[in-house]
């Protein structure tokens, strides 16, 4: 079946044929013996890396190895928020680059990812927090992002049902990024997978990497559940399993894996038309196009590979949510789930070469990986293709921990469960 370009005309013509003529969106190839580049991990970052390697850097002899199915990891488990509201110089240009890529993504990869720039509003609750958010907003403006400080009345006009009169955490205003919003998360995986596949990338699902074979200090290939696959360069984009995969090459990482839960409510009529985050606790919420409220909070706080969390964190999230929106107490939660976060020691990611010449690392995304997907893929592809970092990702070095150049947005220190 031809892998066609999607358009209004193709939708119309296929409708006339009873929608029986759609082809698969990507192939299901068996692995070749050797690729120029092998990417371990078929999540958002791995697929985006493959897509940009093929499209922007002309490297098409590429395989993405995924131990499960596409979208089975964090790309299908997040709360779908995109934004570029970081404070630090090492972070903000990168996340703004990512937001700009989101803005053109659907046209770029010809797939409807439902990019919705509905605005991200961070509430503040005290004079000190207003000062901190003003500083953050100014840092965003300096890097070319948009930011707008709203007072209490302006916030009330936008989201009148918040708990403005809370005695403990009165809402004083908010920092609004109008270009932020949400994206249909698994469509991102599908769009990148289809775009990479059309350019010749082999996406191999149900193929678990079990070893990294080295010779004379270089990687020559990977042992997998589908046999040995040789490669010229190897990129690791394994998110919560990064330390497990890196250990196969005897690399210890500054990363602990933690579980983060997310929740969706029963479907409701349109209720909240942007993303709102609580400033007095960790809570963020938006409403999906199906009507469910999508929300989450802090990580559970202990090392985990389980993709499920505990009730204490559930209770904490619900308490923060009802403190911010009292009406939430009337709403029933439909589902909750967990994803495994690669929590780095400073809360910021790593996109870097390693001490092995042809081994590249993309890891440490903590719980901020989804919004970073396009820029992470682009910058990792840039690094693999050119052996030099992309300018916006130059601070995400693996050796910054040893050298003392940490990128610690909230000053949590080397304590992953505090980031």
């Amino acid at each position, binding site marked *: 079946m031809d892998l066609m370009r999607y358009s209004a005309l193709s939708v119309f013509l296929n409708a006339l044929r009873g929608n029986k003529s759609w082809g698969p969106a990507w192939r299901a190839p068996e692995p070749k013996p050797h690729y120029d580049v092998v990417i371990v991990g078929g999540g958002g970052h791995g697929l985006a890396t493959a897509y940009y390697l093929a499209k922007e850097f002309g490297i098409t002899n590429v395989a993405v190895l995924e131990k499960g199915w596409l979208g089975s990891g964090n790309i299908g488990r997040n709360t779908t928020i995109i934004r570029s509201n970081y404070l630090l110089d090492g972070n903000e240009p990168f996340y703004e680059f990512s937001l700009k890529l989101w803005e053109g993504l659907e046209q770029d990869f010809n797939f409807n990812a439902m990019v919705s720039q509905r605005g991200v509003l961070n509430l503040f609750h005290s004079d000190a927090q207003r000062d901190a958010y003003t500083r953050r907003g100014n840092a965003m403006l300096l890097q070319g992002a948009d930011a707008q400080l709203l007072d209490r009345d302006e916030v009330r006009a936008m989201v009148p049902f918040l708990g403005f009169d809370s005695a403990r955490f009165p809402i004083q205003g908010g920092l609004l990024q109008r270009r932020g919003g949400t994206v249909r998360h698994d469509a991102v995986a599908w769009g990148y997978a289809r775009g990479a596949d059309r350019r010749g990338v082999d996406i191999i699902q149900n193929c678990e990497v079990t070893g990294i074979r080295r010779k004379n200090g270089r990687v020559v290939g990977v042992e997998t559940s589908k046999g040995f696959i040789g490669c010229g360069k190897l990129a690791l984009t394994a998110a919560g399993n990064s330390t497990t995969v890196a250990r196969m090459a005897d690399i210890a990482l500054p990363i602990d894996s933690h579980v983060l839960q997310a929740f969706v409510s029963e479907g409701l009529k349109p209720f909240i038309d942007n993303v709102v985050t609580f400033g007095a606790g960790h809570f963020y919420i938006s409403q999906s196009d199906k009507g469910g409220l999508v929300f989450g909070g802090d990580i559970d706080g202990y090392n*985990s590979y389980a993709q499920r969390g505990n009730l204490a964190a559930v209770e904490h999230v619900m308490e923060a949510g009802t403190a911010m929106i009292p009406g939430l107490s009337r709403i029933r939660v439909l589902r909750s789930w967990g994803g495994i976060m690669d929590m780095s020691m400073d809360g910021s990611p790593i996109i870097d070469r390693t001490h092995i010449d042809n081994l590249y690392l993309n890891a440490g995304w903590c719980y901020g990986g989804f919004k970073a997907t396009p820029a992470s893929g682009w910058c990792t592809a840039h690094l693999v293709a050119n052996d030099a970092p992309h300018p916006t990702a130059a601070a995400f070095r693996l050796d910054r921990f040893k050298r003392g150049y940490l990128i610690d947005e909230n000053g949590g220190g080397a304590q992953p469960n505090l980031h």
Partner: protein
Amino acid sequence: MASLITCPHCGVRPKEEFTIRGDASVTRPSPEADGEVWHAYVHLRDNPRGLHKEYWHHTSGCRRWLVVTRDTVSHDVIDVSDAGALA
């Protein structure tokens, strides 16, 4: 994870009484130790998929530091000991 933790001093207690510090397999180096050694202690982690020894503080109980051995895949708690007894 189990909702109840058996503290060696207080007996069976709810998990929410404890604060989790993290990996107990790393040992604090001497102040004179090399920068590489300190880097490994402060930043690098085994992060095992399976049994993990970790420091828990019984914050709302006896306030002793404990070492909990826990499976990071099943969340089963295998052992709880006083950290001082292991030092």
